[in-house]
């Protein structure tokens, strides 16, 4: 995904040194009339807690946050606490979210943008580690890049 973002000419990538910077940079970009999204991992979202509180929820920022759901799997159990805590963490902050695990779920992404704009609140899109590309020719589901 990172390579795809870098290759897309209509998108300017702002690499940050830590995830806590991503939300305030996005807030500044929005104030300046741009359309920012952020893309960080679940562990980084925990690191960014005070920024999420003060400069997203606190100001009513309509921001879609793409969150890598590290450790998530469809069996339900995981040794990775970064996965264990993601959804309880989002519930705690009262952040609405959508889980995207395969191409079949991609129609949830525009819903996230609509919800963020309608509520003036951040909305998360959690991208499952086992994200799978569907093969439309055969209907088979294959494991995609991690």
């Amino acid at each position, binding site marked *: 995904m990172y390579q795809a973002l870098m290759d897309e000419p209509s998108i300017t990538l702002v690499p940050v040194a830590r995830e806590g910077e991503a939300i305030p*940079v996005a807030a500044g970009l929005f104030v300046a009339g*741009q359309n920012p999204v952020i893309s960080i991992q679940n562990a980084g979202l925990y690191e960014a807690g005070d920024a999420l509180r003060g400069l997203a929820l606190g100001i009513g920022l309509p921001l879609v946050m793409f969150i890598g759901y590290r450790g998530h799997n469809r069996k339900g159990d995981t040794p990775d606490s970064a996965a264990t805590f993601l959804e309880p963490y989002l519930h705690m902050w009262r952040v609405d979210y959508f889980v995207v695990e395969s191409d079949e779920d991609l129609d949830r992404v525009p819903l996230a943008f609509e919800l963020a704009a309608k509520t003036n609140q951040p909305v998360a899109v959690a991208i499952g580690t086992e994200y799978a590309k569907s093969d439309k020719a055969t209907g088979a589901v294959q494991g995609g890049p991690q």
Partner: protein
Amino acid sequence: MITYTDACRVINDSRDESVVVTTMTQTKYWYQISKHPDLDIGIANAMSKASSVALGVALGKPERSVICLDADGSLLMNFGSLATIAGMAPENLYHFVFNNGIYSVTGGQAVPAPGVEYAKAAEACGYASVYRFDDVESLDSSLSEILSSPGPVLIEIMVKGQPQAEGIDQTWESNAKMPLQLRTLRKRLTGADDWGPGGPYL
């Protein structure tokens, strides 16, 4: 040493129509004299993030200068932003750091390393230029040239710290100020009055 009042006065004299992002003690002094409150953001209720918000505005509006009035304690908490800013290299960003060696708003405790030289740190990260001032005359005489040079520039200002006995108010009204400022600034910068209420304060 430079006083907060003097530093804010000379910056205000030279700001023209720059956006100014302030935080902590600087905000109190800045609000007393700012000649363009509609172009100001006082970062409150969000620890250490003035430099990052300023970076976002600078990248989003490259034709307008953005001044950040940061503090040593805040920058220590968001130290990585020096590298992030240097990496994006916005030519319109002027990053002031008020260095008083203490956490004023929490009672005056010393920062972990009071001798950190923020101008040198920014230079090492790759800022276009850096300065350090400890007298207001030098700051005043240099400022208009600095603000017309390409950024990112870091200007470290040595100030005498005074612990704030009263701390910072956390009221519904005070916490509504930043969300309102952000909406005012978006309207000013884009011409669109399209950011409605949201969050706990509006």
